[in-house]
């Protein structure tokens, strides 16, 4: 038999039908929804006189709009409150399980799926959110969709999708001290650009990837959309199975053993062919920091902003426009630049390991007086774990306060916005103009880089 890729195996097993010369009808195992991209899909569905076809395969949580303090009170901002209420009534009407603000499983949609064991190897998973790619860490095909497609999944549990091309990104060797999977992500995007993965689905492989924890794998797959790829995935292995075992929705008993046996077959065959392949050396990767207005504009913390001298025409104009927004000059060093805000959280870096890294670094140190820090767990369960492990005390004695779960400052949709002109070292995923608030200047980095910036008040190297 022809050798095939992990992606092909899962994709082919989910094709219900193929339109000649057109897209495939792809069956969707799990559909996550949130308050922002679902209301128009619900109203579209209802205007056709339909109900949700498979509500039990759908899970809802409000995350984008929610405040991260005083969650027991009604949401103050009217439009946000209305969107969250609309999600609640839509889920009630269509019998969709929802983990709302008061629920012990509430959190960012891409955090709660994995932590509840809903996300499993071999599945097809979609959500009206580009960071659905996170779930690919389990060896699933997971990708973001638009609201029209959310409506398709509601109506039929299927969507029409052209099959993407396949890319493999190998990272071999051992990562340096205090280099995390976030740094791998920012390094790879800096190398292949924000459009390098467009049209492709990425499989991450190689010894450096295999040695990553499940949470670190999620961070990497989460960021795969930032290179333009539809999604990223990693073949399931013992790390995956150990993470999943015993979680609420993971199979139990004999069903577990049977599933694990199936999941072990989910890997790319030797000699399978990819449309595009890259290999990077883990030892070349430093703690990364971005200096511009897309996630591909990143350098190692010891490095400098490029001069842009090699750029011409609209490439150069775009580069200079970006630096102008950031208030930086070509060729400048980043280390030592004063910063104003630090944000630890989001679907990229809002899991327990991220807070452990942060707490471990700041332990016994003090937050720089001029820095405002927002420490936002990705879910109620993460928040609980932070408390149980005594990390809150470490944070508090260093001058940091823990907030409540939500997307928070990642996207300036709720109350957590970075003010105009301020510099924020952020563990989130996008440094677009205005992403964290109108005029906000975002510098993407790992939780360790953010920790180092929070205590020194400037861009610092966490290895020092």
């Amino acid at each position: 038999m022809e050798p095939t890729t992990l992606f092909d195996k899962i994709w082919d097993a989910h094709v219900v039908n193929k339109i000649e010369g057109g897209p495939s009808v792809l069956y969707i195992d799990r559909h996550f929804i949130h308050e922002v991209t679902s209301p128009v899909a619900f109203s579209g569905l209802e205007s056709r006189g339909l109900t949700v076809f498979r509500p039990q395969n759908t899970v809802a949580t409000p995350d984008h709009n929610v405040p991260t303090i005083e969650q027991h009170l009604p949401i103050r901002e009217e439009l946000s409150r209305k969107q969250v209420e609309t999600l609640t009534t839509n889920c009630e009407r269509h019998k969709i399980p929802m983990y709302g603000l008061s629920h012990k499983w509430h959190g960012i949609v891409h955090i709660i799926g994995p932590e509840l064991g809903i996300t499993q190897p071999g599945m097809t998973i979609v959500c009206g959110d580009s960071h659905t790619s996170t779930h690919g860490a389990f060896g699933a095909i997971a990708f973001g969709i638009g609201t029209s497609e959310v409506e398709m999944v509601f109506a039929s549990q299927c969507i029409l999708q052209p099959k993407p091309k396949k890319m493999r990104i190998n990272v071999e060797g051992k990562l340096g001290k205090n280099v995390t999977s976030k740094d791998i992500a920012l390094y790879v995007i800096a190398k292949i650009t924000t459009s390098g993965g467009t049209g492709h689905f990425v499989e991450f492989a190689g010894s450096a990837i295999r040695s990553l924890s499940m949470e670190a794998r999620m961070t990497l797959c989460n960021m795969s959309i930032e290179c333009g790829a539809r999604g990223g995935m990693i073949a399931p292995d013992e790390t995956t199975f150990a993470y999943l075992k015993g979680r609420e929705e993971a199979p139990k008993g004999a069903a577990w053993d049977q599933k694990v046996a199936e999941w072990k077959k989910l890997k790319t065959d030797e000699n399978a062919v990819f449309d595009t392949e890259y290999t990077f050396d883990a030892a070349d990767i430093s703690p990364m920091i971005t200096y511009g207005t897309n996630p591909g504009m990143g350098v190692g913390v010891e490095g400098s902003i490029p001069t842009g001298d090699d750029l011409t025409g609209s490439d150069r104009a775009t580069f200079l426009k970006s630096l102008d927004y950031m208030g930086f000059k070509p060729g400048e060093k980043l280390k030592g630049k004063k910063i104003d805000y630090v944000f630890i959280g989001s679907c990229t870096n809002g899991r327990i390991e991220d807070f452990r890294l942060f707490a471990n670094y700041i332990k016994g140190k003090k937050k720089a007086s001029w820095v405002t820090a927002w420490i936002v767990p990705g879910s109620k369960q993460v928040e609980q774990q932070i408390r149980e492990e005594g990390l809150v005390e470490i944070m508090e004695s260093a001058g940091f306060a823990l907030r409540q779960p939500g997307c928070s400052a990642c996207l300036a949709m709720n109350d957590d916005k970075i003010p105009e002109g301020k510099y924020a070292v952020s563990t989130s995923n996008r440094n677009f103009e205005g992403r964290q608030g109108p005029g906000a200047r975002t510098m993407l980095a790992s939780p360790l880089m953010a920790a180092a910036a929070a205590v020194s008040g400037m861009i610092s190297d966490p290895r020092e």
Partner: protein
Amino acid sequence: MDKFHKILSSAIPLPIENVDTDQIIPARFLKAVERKGFGDNLFRDWRYRKDSTPNPDFVLNNPKYSGTILVAGKNFGSGSSREHAAWAVYDFGFRVVVSSFFADIFKGNVLNNGLLPIQVPEDFLTGMFGTIEKNPSATFEVDLETQTIRNNSLGTEFKFDINPYKKECLLKGYDDIDYLLSLKKEIEAFEMK
């Protein structure tokens, strides 16, 4: 979905690369629960100043430029999957977006909303920008049936790619849900496997 007709129009240029969907419509304007009025906030933070008055330097506020064709720099529509970006572009009045490269999700979203994304080679795009710069009322013709876009001033023409299924949907105003609903039996049989 509205049917896509032949278009003869002037075009509005946006020669910026990597325009992400946060620029097309910032997250703070995604709070509506209905699909209308998003055009008002298209390119919000470029189009309006801090005090909400129009920024005269932005192309959409320049009366010289008009038309139903948006011409943008490469890698248009990257980032967030928000379909609100497609709704905003459509609601503003555009029916065609031309670029030398589109991000995947955005491209899928516009096709699902009766808006045609046309990917053209870099030199054709440069030609369009040049033509508009010289004469903002210069016209372009888009014919989906023959898959051609024509720069009337330069007399150049490009035959663009589009998935035949999506082309049919646009021409007839069909959407994917009608088709998926017709497959209900096959989907149920698939679930039993």
